[in-house]
């Protein structure tokens, strides 16, 4: 286990960049560098700024430096029979806690247990002026001041360099069991919503190639009871299935085409206008689409349904960089994004353009 405090070094680098007005690209484990628009600047590496600072299982919170490997964090929690309930994907062995929070990545349990942002309790960061600031804390209930820590989740480092993060942890479920059912996509969507309206210990619901996968997590009795009600066949080695889905290791994801992430309201029907069968996760609220369709067409269809589309991974062949990763905001919302950027990073030195061009 590597424990190092690089706060001072990182701060010095930010101060220098602030003084000169030069851009910095924030790197953690560099496991998700492909995510977002391309950015510029000198590399600010947080990877070595690592170590678990505080973990007491009965407090249900862990505090670690941003460069702490996600795997180390998860192993520490597992030793106490606890976990990050939002099941973040790693995408590489080097994935860090900081990068996970900066991307707000969450796995299959998200609709039932919450996203990364829901588990953030506090953080220490360096803002764009090189000031080290602390927000939130290590307690679940805390409403003193604006919720800056949660604002950092998904901001892709554009508002500050995360130094330390406190996240809420949960006990591992006593039992998990997954069921497989052969269904049409339409029926799966209908069932996923119907089950979510019932007090069932549902913790994941995905759909791949004509098969619905439902995961139950809870006490042994309640999992058994729910399995009986839901029907379907038990899925052997089910943990491996959810791991491969989370880490995008299915053949579906090994593509030359563009991988789109569609985030949609829970009751969105099959989007027939988008050719190709997606992989459904989050009970249908998240859909992975492999497609070379025009970005505008995809985004229009998804917007019409009340959602948004993210260009998750650009195809190897795609040279067209005019398509931005994230769906455009309304001019009014963009205005407040610029205002906030200005409030945290007045010289625009952190990860310029990575979230939105000009931000």
């Amino acid at each position, binding site marked *: 286990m590597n424990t190092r405090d690089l706060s001072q070094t990182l701060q010095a680098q930010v101060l220098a960049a602030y003084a000169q007005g030069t851009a910095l690209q924030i790197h953690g484990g560099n496991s998700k560098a492909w995510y977002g628009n391309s950015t510029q600047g000198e590399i600010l590496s947080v990877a070595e700024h690592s170590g678990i600072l505080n973990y007491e299982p009965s407090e249900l919170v862990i505090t670690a430096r941003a460069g702490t490997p996600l795997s180390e964090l998860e192993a520490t929690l597992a030793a106490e029979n606890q976990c990050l309930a939002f099941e973040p994907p790693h995408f590489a062995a080097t994935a860090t806690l900081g990068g996970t929070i900066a991307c707000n990545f969450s796995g299959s349990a998200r609709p039932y247990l919450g996203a990364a942002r829901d588990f953030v309790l506090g953080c220490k960061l360096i803002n764009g002026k090189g000031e080290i600031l602390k*927000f939130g804390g290590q*307690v679940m209930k805390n*409403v003193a001041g604006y*919720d800056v820590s949660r604002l950092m989740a998904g901001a892709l480092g554009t508002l500050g360099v995360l130094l330390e993060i406190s996240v809420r942890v949960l006990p591992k479920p006593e039992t998990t069991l997954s069921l497989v059912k052969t269904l049409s996509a339409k029926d799966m969507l209908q069932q996923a919503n119907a089950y979510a309206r019932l*007090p069932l210990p549902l913790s994941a619901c995905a759909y791949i190639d004509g098969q619905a996968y439902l995961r139950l997590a809870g006490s042994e*009795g309640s999992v058994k*009871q729910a399995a009986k009600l839901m029907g379907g066949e038990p899925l052997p080695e089910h943990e491996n299935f959810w791991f491969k889905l989370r880490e995008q290791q299915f053949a579906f994801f090994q593509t030359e085409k563009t991988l789109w992430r569609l985030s949609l309201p829970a009751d969105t029907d099959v989007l027939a206008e988008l050719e190709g069968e997606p992989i459904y996760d989050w009970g249908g609220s998240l859909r992975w689409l492999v497609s070379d369709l025009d970005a505008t067409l995809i985004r229009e269809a998804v917007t019409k349904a009340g959602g948004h589309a993210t260009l998750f991974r650009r195809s190897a062949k795609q040279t067209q960089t005019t398509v931005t990763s994230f769906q455009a905001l309304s001019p009014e*919302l963009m205005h407040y994004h610029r205002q906030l950027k200005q409030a*945290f990073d007045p010289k625009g030195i952190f990860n310029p353009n990575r979230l939105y061009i000009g931000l």
Partner: protein
Amino acid sequence: MSASHFNPDREQLIAALQAIRPQPLILTKPEELKPYECDGLSAYRQVPLVVVLPDKVEQVQAILKICHAQKVPVVARGAGTGLSGGALPHEQGVLLSLAKFTQILEINPERRSATVQPGVRNLAITQAVDHLGLYYAPDPSSQIACTIGGNVAENSGGVHCLKYGLTVHNILQIKLVTIEGELLTIGSHSLDSPGYDLLALLTGSEGMLGVIVEVTVKLLPKPERVQVLLAAFDDVIKAGAAVGAIISAGIIPAGLEMMDGPAIQAAEDFAHAGYPTDAAAILLCELDGTNAEVSEQLMRVHDILLQSAATEVRTAKDAEERATLWKGRKSAFPAVGRISPDYYCMDGTIPRKHLPQVLQSINQFSEEFGLAVANVFHAGDGNLHPLILFDANQPGELERAEAFGGKILELCVQVGGTITGEHGVGMEKINQMCAQFNSLELSQFHAVKAAFDPAGLLNPCKAVPTLQRCAEFGAMHVHQGQLPHADLERF
């Protein structure tokens, strides 16, 4: 920022408000303004310049445009149940009541969401979806009266936060009117939205960044079974240890509440819940989930409580007994109100492990200040509600109660907690913000505020203290010889 910072022309303001079509209800007479002089924290009172009660979003936009143009402060108000003075009017400002926005706009069972206007009461949402087997989880104890708009502004919690989270975890989308009168949609009906998480930033922003005019909440399935246990202890510290033991066993109760001797006695006299009045502390533990899960957990928690030296463990036999056990806890505040002319409710949160130490200190402060205290806690999440008993008619007692409360909050910060778990900073805890945050952090908050409201018209002087205020406050509270905010000039 003093009141003189704003100097609106009252006649000109009223004329502009009266010109809005359709005209909102405008109150200007002293006897009409009086009922709005305070919220749930009645120690602070201030009559506003004018009260406006719109019932259309367009009117809210028009009102804010006028206030923006005429540089008039605006304080938004829901049901006025807040406990930190967040809706305390500004003497030079408009009190904008959202009380007329009481429509439930849409209930969507498929999406498990409800879209409501901000003046809809918290409990009314659950009542409206009850027939679908759904409910809205956050349940502040004022849920019968408090509104969802206020809940979002304060990021309200309640008894069930430990398992189901705060308001921020249970909403999907809000519509917000900015000080410039612009209508923004924040979040979406999907589980996430592109860009910054403005939904998180605005939740709990205490009316400082905008006025909430619509909220879409998430609905959860009602649990199949709910069960409540009561455990009595002869020592508060043992009760605190039992809380840790339950959570360490991998059980997340739906609610885990603690009361100390004086609170038990007051609640029992008031509600006749059958509490053991000779106990030094009681724990109420609510378990919910599927039938099977609750049965299993019930047995385990029962054993843990006995192992933690509980002198008595009781399980509610039926829904009626469960309701009675909760009634005692939920009426703790009015019950204490009956035994003391006044009480001052604190709201710090601490890491649970420090509970014994903090309780000891609270008792010491109690002796020091010569004021009794009754303790009620959301023990599961470390949220303390010490109720300081005093008599405002006795000269100096209010000041002593405030000083006592201030010491408790500063102690919460020292042990790694926070000055407010769910009631908000408002006007009340503005000085303690200086203990929790340093000048740079407060400046960052001010920059966030300026991003939305550069002129500082929305809820002025609340939630985030000016650095000057902290310098003045710090000068009175020098801790271990270290002058807080030493980098500031002092006058």
